[in-house]
């Protein structure tokens, strides 16, 4: 699949926004149970402004994916069937309630309505994240994405962004939470690495359809594409098969792993083991996660193979071959080309 930069941008901005609010409000929420986790007003406001600006920039960036930006409001119409519609509704509502929450904090109304809007924003943020993840995971024609691992990984990425961003903020305002958030960042990084590995390993075991199945022809006949009816690329071959991306994928994917997981894990473990809390390490942990995740999302799109590519002979090869009178199923050969 061709990676749309606008969607990668939305993933990063919405991920940091929702992740950061998640941990900011979680600390405030714990005060309801008598815990001493209240955050300074200044910190809550800075966190909320960052979240608001990012979700706004994310929405603007994501609109560049649309052909008609001014009609985007119509996306609320098919809420009952479309995950994209749900994403639009939940992310819009999240931004609105987040603004109210920030205003309540600004005017020092920290009573019932403050927590009411905090909880609502928290839930809407996660519903928005879940809806975005489901857009990919529910697509049964891109088998690489069509798994619950896509959703778990996606939600965990938001937690990775949130914990590392909150760590960078709490260093200045409530240093006693640094240890907790070092652990949480490590935990979500380790989980993220496990989910991403599972996502990649799974690709070797997917039972892929063949061109014979696409054309509904007997499996014992080898079929070859002779002509696709056009002398150049068309929408289908460009949108669903990114040739340049497939060539770069073997180089970019390891780089994405290193930047998203390996380097941040090294920084976090260094702080944890040595006990030396250096802000530069905290800062770079977050930055590496963001840059690495941008590359990881790019890989996520390029790794996806749409089944319509079968008609063009651009799908990873798998099929049947006649050998000594019986049909033998070929082994899946994962090809990045």
């Amino acid at each position: 699949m061709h990676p749309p930069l606008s969607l990668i941008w939305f993933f990063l901005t919405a991920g940091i926004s929702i992740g950061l609010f998640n941990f900011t409000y979680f600390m405030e929420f714990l005060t309801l149970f008598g815990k001493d986790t209240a955050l300074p007003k200044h910190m809550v406001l800075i966190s909320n402004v960052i979240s608001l600006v990012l979700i706004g920039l994310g929405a603007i960036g994501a609109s560049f994916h649309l052909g008609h930006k001014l009609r985007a409001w119509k996306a609320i119409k098919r809420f009952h069937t479309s995950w994209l519609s749900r994403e639009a509704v939940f992310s819009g509502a999240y931004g609105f309630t987040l603004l109210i929450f920030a205003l309540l904090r600004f005017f020092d109304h920290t009573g019932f309505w403050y927590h009411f809007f905090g909880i609502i924003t928290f839930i809407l943020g996660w519903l928005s994240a879940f809806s975005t993840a489901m857009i990919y995971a529910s697509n049964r024609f891109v088998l690489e994405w069509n798994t619950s691992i896509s959703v778990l990984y996606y939600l965990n990425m938001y937690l990775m962004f949130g914990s590392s961003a909150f760590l960078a903020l709490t260093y200045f305002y409530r240093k006693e939470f640094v240890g907790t958030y070092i652990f949480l960042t490590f935990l979500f990084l380790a989980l993220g690495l496990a989910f991403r590995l599972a996502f990649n390993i799974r690709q070797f075991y997917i039972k892929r359809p063949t061109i014979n199945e696409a054309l509904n022809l007997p499996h014992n006949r080898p079929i070859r594409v002779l002509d696709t009816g056009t002398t150049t690329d068309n929408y289908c071959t460009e949108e669903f098969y990114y040739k340049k991306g497939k060539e770069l994928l073997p180089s970019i994917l390891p780089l994405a792993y290193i930047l998203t997981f390996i380097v941040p894990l090294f920084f976090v473990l260094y702080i944890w083991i040595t006990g030396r809390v250096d802000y530069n390490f905290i800062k770079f942990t977050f930055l590496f996660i963001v840059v690495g995740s941008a590359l990881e999302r790019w890989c996520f799109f390029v790794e996806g193979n749409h089944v319509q590519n079968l008609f063009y002979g651009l799908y990873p090869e798998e099929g049947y071959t006649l050998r000594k009178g019986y049909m033998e199923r070929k082994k899946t050969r994962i090809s990045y080309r």
Partner: protein
Amino acid sequence: MPQYALVIDLNTCVGCHACATNCKEWNTQASFGPLSDFDPYGKNPKGVWYNRIMTYEMGEFPNTQVFHLPKSCLHCQDAPCVPVCPTGASYKREQDGIVLVNYDDCIGCKLCSWSCPYGCREFDEADKVMKKCTLCIDRIYDESLPPEHRKPACVLTCPAKARFFGDIEDPNSEAYKMIKERNGFVLFPDMGTNPANHYLPRTETKVHVDEHLLEAENPLFLEVVRRHYKGG
């Protein structure tokens, strides 16, 4: 419920692209047009097409067969492109089962094309909306046309008469009879989309060679005979 669809005979289709060309010609000027072209006279001409013809080779050399597969929207009875549309621009008509796109509501998010396993939707970069085969809905209901012309442009133009149009749920229609009598099949049945467009299977070509042609001095015919009567 009626379900209009195309039935395409792979046995007679010669891959001449006349259906695609006439489709483009009609739809560029009609209600659902234009079908934009980019760099049409340049090095990399591109454009939006409702109908594309693929050519495949089946079998192993020397026993191979070539067949052509015209592929346009299959107007699936369980169309996966419809529920994913966030605006409701993609819809399936109850009265005839045709899947259409309302260009005034389409926001150009491309999600419907991601949800089509056949690659039958194309994004028009000029109009910024998704476009697809309409089964020439502006022809088939046009009462100003003579009844024999109220068919999709691709059906009317096919020189090999390989394309048929009709209600596949109506036992009296030509399309229904073709499917029943000649074992019509659909593309990608495992995808659970229940396509309405059907294809009539290609039968293997048998060459009948008269006895008087079986002469030793004619190596070409001997080769043909050897291939077709091998083992029998």
